[in-house]
């Protein structure tokens, strides 16, 4: 027996006419994480698309991007609140739906949440939204008083007519303000006068995370809802040949066993546990196709060939690399490699869908609401106008939830039972098998050194996957994937932090059958390891101090140099490391921010690594919420160091071999180094914070391991390497 639980909370909304066609009762209450509640004439008037003010002065700020732990919703709310001049203690938030965005000519612009873009690509229009709302509130008050709006000011949700001292609150004039004409131009505040931006404010979404009240996608519960478990062909690209559901169909609670698309089977049951246990009993024959011949060994050979291939896309070039290498007093070369990795979000993929022939609604944790809506509509065979997606809390994203494969599946299953909500939840095993994996690459780095040990020439050859070629081919430039060159680019958000007179960074694109995807840090993870460890090698090979060696090449990169110098200073690089400990450095520009790390490690006689502490510095330009930036430094370090220590998906007979956290381990608290973070915003630009620092954790630790052992780890993850020879 299933007990249908309708969560009653403030996060509830009345699901009205929208799905009456689905045979569900009008006005039933559905649990939603946060959905637009303001409608014309309601008690919570909308001032503009970004701001809703209730009569009790509660300010609801609309957030288009997805909160997945990175704190973006609090940061975005701070941006709006700053310009709105509202009382921060009265601020709450809600998500508009992608369907509402569509209906309102994309008034909230992009919903996509990736690439550490949440704040840096929307700060301008989000702040303008807050400023426009403030002006409209002031106009409304001035109207009531019959005074000039120029004589009124707003602060802390109170509007004051300066000459008379008369005051009113946002809540009292919000209704009238919403009827007003939006200003055509707004002036944003001078950063020097910011009161909310830059403050280490507590997150707006913490409390419900402490009591079990937060509703994640896997917690969605709708009246009459049934549950589905799914298994897709373990070999990517393979198909479903046939299945025998006799045993499974007879099991408790099972309602149906269905093919999903051409490559998966799902069981629908009263509870998910019944669905999952029955799925284990479905006898499935897969047509695995030719990808079943692929293995880690064959992929390795494919990528190795690319290291010396003639043809490669040029991503960054300066001087004359051939001449530079030819005249070098000494050349030095090393090969590195980085494996496939799963995102392993804590919450496995899931989506809940209800479908009728003229309406489809989906509840899901997604990093890209608009893409999820498009996927739902395509699967449902309906125009997007007849569909919507309700964003529910994400149990982690890290790039994985930018894809909508699970939405497509949920809708397809829901189509087999019109009008009945179906919640699809993947097992961890399914999640491990069907990732959008961190791209696999190898690199060959070759340096030409002059007689003084200066780097006169550097060739970085990358061989491996391209995310864009697989997922977003329209993003390629004449076939070249610019994302491959993150942290090695000539300029921009991912510019190389060194000046080398003769430089070539190129990419031999080698795509495999496993789908790559955006991943926290994505290509900076391996590129920073390749470059920063190789630079460290060069310093040691030429007998130079790794800090001074880097500084020499960074004269034209003052902001990168500043963060590097900061970690060196904090770690007291000029003094010997504490007894038994060894240090390593790393610096990088990623996602528009400058980041550096100095790791302090020890390695026992039997090769056991202890990461004692890491000093980190980040310059994101403007720091919207320093305590959340600090949390992102901690978090990105854990994600990056987990990847460095353990992250590896291997392939046998075309399928990923790791199935759960026993074979795909993740770092635990005992392995966590103490992280000392310096947030040093230099102002004038908007860099990301969710991902950049992931770039520097692993190379700093790897360089420290070398300092400790003389062993250079060039192939990840560390679990496969002996740190001391037996």
């Amino acid at each position, binding site marked *: *027996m*299933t*007990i249908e*639980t309708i969560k009653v909370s403030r996060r509830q909304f009345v699901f009205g006419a929208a799905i009456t066609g689905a045979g569900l009762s009008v006005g039933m209450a559905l649990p939603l994480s946060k959905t637009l509640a303001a409608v014309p004439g309601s008690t919570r008037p909308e001032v503009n698309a970004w701001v809703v003010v209730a009569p009790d002065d509660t300010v609801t700020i609309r957030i288009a991007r997805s909160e*997945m*732990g*990175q704190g973006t919703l609090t940061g975005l709310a701070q941006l709006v609140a700053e310009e709105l001049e509202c009382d921060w203690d009265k601020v709450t938030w809600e998500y508009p739906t992608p369907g509402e965005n569509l209906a309102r000519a994309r008034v909230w612009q992009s919903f996509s949440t990736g690439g550490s873009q949440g704040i840096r690509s929307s700060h301008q229009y989000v702040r303008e939204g807050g400023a426009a709302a403030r002006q409209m509130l002031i106009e409304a008050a001035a109207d009531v008083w019959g005074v000039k709006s120029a004589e009124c000011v707003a602060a802390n949700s109170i509007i004051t007519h300066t000459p008379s001292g008369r005051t009113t609150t946002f809540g009292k004039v919000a209704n009238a303000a919403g009827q007003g004409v939006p200003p055509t131009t707004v002036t944003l505040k001078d950063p020097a006068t910011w009161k909310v931006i830059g403050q280490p404010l*507590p*997150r707006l*979404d*913490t*409390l*419900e*995370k*402490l*009591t*079990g*009240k*937060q509703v*994640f996608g*896997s*917690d969605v*519960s709708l009246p009459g809802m049934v*549950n589905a478990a799914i298994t897709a062909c373990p070999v990517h690209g393979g198909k479903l040949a046939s299945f025998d559901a006799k045993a499974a169909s007879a099991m408790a609670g099972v309602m149906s066993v269905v093919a999903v698309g051409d490559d998966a089977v799902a069981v629908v049951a009263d*509870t*998910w*546990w019944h669905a999952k246990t029955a799925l284990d009993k479905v006898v499935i024959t897969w047509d695995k196709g030719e990808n079943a011949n692929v293995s880690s060994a064959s992929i390795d050979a494919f990528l190795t060939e690319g290291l010396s291939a003639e043809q490669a896309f040029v991503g960054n070039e300066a001087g004359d690399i051939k001449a530079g290498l030819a005249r070098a007093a000494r050349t030095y070369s090393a090969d590195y490699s980085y494996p496939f990795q799963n995102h*392993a*979000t*804590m*919450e*496995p993929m899931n989506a809940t869908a209800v479908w009728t022939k003229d309406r489809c609604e989906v509840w899901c944790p997604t990093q890209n609401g608009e893409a999820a809506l498009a996927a739902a509509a395509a699967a449902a065979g309906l125009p997007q106008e007849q569909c919507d997606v309700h964003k529910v809390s*994400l*149990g*982690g*994203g*890290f790039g994985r939830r930018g894809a909508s494969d699970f939405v497509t599946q949920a809708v397809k299953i829901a189509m087999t039972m019109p009008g009945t909500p179906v919640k699809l*939840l993947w*097992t*961890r095993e399914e999640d491990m098998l069907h990732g959008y994996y961190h791209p696999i690459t190898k690199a060959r780095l070759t340096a030409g050194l002059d007689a003084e040990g200066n780097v006169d020439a550097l060739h970085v050859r990358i061989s491996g996957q391209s995310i864009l070629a697989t997922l977003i081919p329209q993003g390629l430039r004449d076939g070249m994937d610019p994302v491959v060159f993150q942290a090695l680019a000539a300029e921009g958000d991912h510019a190389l932090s060194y000046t080398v007179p003769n430089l070539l960074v190129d990419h031999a694109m080698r795509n495999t059958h496993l789908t790559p995807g955006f991943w926290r840090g994505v290509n900076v993870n391996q590129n920073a390891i390749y470059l920063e460890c190789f630079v460290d090698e060069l310093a040691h090979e030429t007998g130079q101090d790794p800090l001074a060696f880097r500084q020499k090449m960074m004269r034209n990169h003052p902001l990168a140099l500043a963060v590097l110098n900061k970690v060196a200073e904090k770690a007291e690089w000029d003094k010997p490391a504490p007894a038994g400990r060894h240090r390593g450095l790393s610096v990088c520009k990623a996602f528009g921010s400058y980041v550096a790390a100095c790791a302090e490690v020890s390695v026992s006689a039997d090769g056991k690594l202890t990461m004692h502490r890491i000093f980190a510095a980040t310059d994101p330009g403007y720091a919207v919420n320093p*305590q*959340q930036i600090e*949390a992102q430094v*901690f*978090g*990105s*370090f*854990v*994600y990056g160091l*987990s990847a460095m220590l353990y992250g590896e998906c291997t392939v046998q007979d075309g399928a990923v071999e790791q199935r*759960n*956290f*026993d074979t795909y381990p*993740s*770092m*635990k*608290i*005992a392995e*966590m180094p103490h*992280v000392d973070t310096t947030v040093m915003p230099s102002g004038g630009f908007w860099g990301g914070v969710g991902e950049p620092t992931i770039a520097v954790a692993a190379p700093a630790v790897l360089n420290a391991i070398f300092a400790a052992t003389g062993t250079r780890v060039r192939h990840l993850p560390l679990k496969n390497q002996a740190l001391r020879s037996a």
Partner: protein
Amino acid sequence: MVKLTINGKVTEVDAEGDTPLLWVLREQAGLTGTKYGCGIAQCGSCTVHIDGEAVRSCVYPLAAVQENQKITTIEGLSATGDHPVQQAWAQLDTPQCGYCQPGMIMASAALLGNNPEPTDADIDKQITNICRCGTFQRVREGIHLAAKINTAQSSKGSAK
């Protein structure tokens, strides 16, 4: 029907004896605060208390629970969300996505129940939950802070 004592209330559930307690809590009792992360006792997302001890409910069959055993989930850890661990977590803004946090909080509360002033080494040994967002530094700080809050509260209580 099986009777369970969950968060102080006797609750009847109807599930096969081999159903993991995790799914009984989530799908029968409607208590979705306890999370599924791996199903094989690796991650700790599903941590609840049975008679005050932390257990990983994804591998704990319903048949193994006695009616008189007290099951506590995140929803029942405190009546008003003010268990010292919850207070410490709020002060430090510990959660990121929040998905592992019910398990992390329950594991931390159980640790403090047995060991009011855990050392870093105790924490390393007892807290083996996975957090993919990487909240460990504030979890560690939070456990120490919760221990302090606990001491402060109990000394206040005894002074009365």
